């Protein structure tokens, strides 16, 4: 089978959605030289934790031994699944994320199965022999222009309710009449959050993959900051009035911790939502944020499901606790926009 035919038959994963497939001209097998974001052709060796990969069309696809996949070399940090590094062993590698991340698993939650094993077949090169990387297809930084206000969403951990909070706030702002951008600036490329933002009516949706990274784990802080600005500026260029921006994982995760500690973050955001699992987490997280001079406008997340936990969290943090229904309510969401300066532009 020719390279073109193999690539035609392969399952291109979600993180490759911006790749111009026609630029693939050659291949090599120098996997030792693989860098984060490099495009890899691999075959499914043994199905494990991930039984499906995510396609650019936004649907999952079951995978079977022998299937060809096009995927990006990358690291991963997911406490409820795997930690992995952007390293590819020619004798076999791990499917670290169904969105399309191949690497070497170094730690695994006891709650999940072993990673699906992949046999790397080739690195994809262009006609000049350059390795094709997601960064080659990234959005270009926009010339300096007015950037829409950004509402940050952070949380205590995975599954604390950040994505739901982001999506519901997008919905509330949209209902209030704003054009909303939804971006995710850290994490590992996947369509779950991306689709949820889009389903909530965001006018522009993007994540770090659109800025050239399959994952932000172990990426330099400056690169993540530049990517964030690119995505926020792109949202503005696409006509968004306001941007809701989710940071993955918890406040103590390496990249998220570095971002919130950087004055750049405080300067970037015009509002902050903090998603927590419970009241104790809310108290601890609020204290961490306060050390960096960050005071959330609202606490939300799993803690808000219980009126009693909400009352405890409000008492402990001094902040308003909002449910997902509150965030989706235009009367509540408008407050975020008005505090961010999106009030009336002129007297009639």
């Amino acid at each position, binding site marked *: 089978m020719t390279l073109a035919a193999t690539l035609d038959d392969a399952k291109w994963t979600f993180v490759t959605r911006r790749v111009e497939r026609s630029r693939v001209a050659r291949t090599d097998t120098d996997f030792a030289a693989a860098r984060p974001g490099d495009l890899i052709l691999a075959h499914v060796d043994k199905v494990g934790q991930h039984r499906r990969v995510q396609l650019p069309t936004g649907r999952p696809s079951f995978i079977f031994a022998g299937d060809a996949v096009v995927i990006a070399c990358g690291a991963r940090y997911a406490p409820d699944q795997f930690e992995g590094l952007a390293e590819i062993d020619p004798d076999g590698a791990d499917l670290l994320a169904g969105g399309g991340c191949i690497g070497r698993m170094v730690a695994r939650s006891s709650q999940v199965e072993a990673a699906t094993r992949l046999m790397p077949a080739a690195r994809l090169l262009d006609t000049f022999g350059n390795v094709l990387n997601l960064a080659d297809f990234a959005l270009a930084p926009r010339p300096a222009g007015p950037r829409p206000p950004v509402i940050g969403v952070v949380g205590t951990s995975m599954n604390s309710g950040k994505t739901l909070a982001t999506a519901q706030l997008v919905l509330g702002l949209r209902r209030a009449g704003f054009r909303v951008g939804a971006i995710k600036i850290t994490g590992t490329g996947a369509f779950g959050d991306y689709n949820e933002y889009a389903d909530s009516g965001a006018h522009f949706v993007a994540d770090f993959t659109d800025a050239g990274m399959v994952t932000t784990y172990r990426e330099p802080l400056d690169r993540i900051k530049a990517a964030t600005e690119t995505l926020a500026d792109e949202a503005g260029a696409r006509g968004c009035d306001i941007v809701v921006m989710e940071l993955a994982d918890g406040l103590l995760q390496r990249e998220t911790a570095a971002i919130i500690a950087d004055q750049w973050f405080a300067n970037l955001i015009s509002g902050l939502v903090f998603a927590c699992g419970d009241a104790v987490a809310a108290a601890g997280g609020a204290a961490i944020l306060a050390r960096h001079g960050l005071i959330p406008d609202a606490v939300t997340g799993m803690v808000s499901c219980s009126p009693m936990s909400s009352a405890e969290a409000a008492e402990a943090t001094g902040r308003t606790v909002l449910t997902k229904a*509150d965030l989706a309510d*235009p009367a*509540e969401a*408008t*407050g975020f926009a008005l505090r961010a300066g999106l*009030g*009336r532009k002129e007297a*009639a």
Partner: protein
Amino acid sequence: MKNPNNDTAEYITACSAAGRLTARIIRPANPVPAPPVVVLHGISRNAGILAQLFAPEAERTGRTIVVPHFPEKSWPDFQRPSKAARPDQALLALLDAVAAKLPDGAGTVDLFGHSGGAQLTHRFAMLYPHRVAALHLVAAGWYCLPDDTMTYPYGLASGTDRFSTAWARRNAHGLRDFLGLPVCVYVGSKDVIRDPALRTNRTLDARQGPNRHARARTYVMALNAAAERHDLPARAQFVELTDCDHDVVHALTHNHLAFRVLDARSQAPRSQAV
């Protein structure tokens, strides 16, 4: 869309989580680039009559007029956001639909409301000042004062329950933007009857006044005092409708209220009688 009255008028229907809302759209032959005027009826739900009486002004001024109708059956409560109903959400959706349909409908709108419609109008503008260009409030029964002198829903002080706390907060979010709006508060010189439709209780009577006329004055003073506290110019004006009671048809036919509302954008704010 289905024409609810089987006439030749143009209607638009918007769907939202709060429910469906239909409005008649009156488009002039020669439109001018000015915000549409949204005309909200009171508890008599006389949208058809309001549309009929405002239509000549649309043609005269070139401004589009939108007249929503909250039917009794689907909107037993429509005067303000409450646990029972969210007319504000329905109105937001309607404005979005108007913006999608009309060339000049994408910006802010002027809001006109009579009685219960004025109740909804001023509360909508407090919540969503970014959607409003100007307010025309005619004889609301009572008001949400823009200060902490009364608990919500009479003012912005938080109550003891989660509901009133949340709504006091939501109304306070945009207070400064709201206070920047030009507001005309109209009331009939004879609108002093404490009829059964008028909400009365000791605190309300004491703080806002015994009748609609007195409460309109109180509200205008409260708006301008709040504006001053925010270092904003006083933009609220009290307009007494001579020899008029609570009848909006009388106000429109004898006091030329529609004429005044449609021309208000070129008039300087001042207290006066018409």
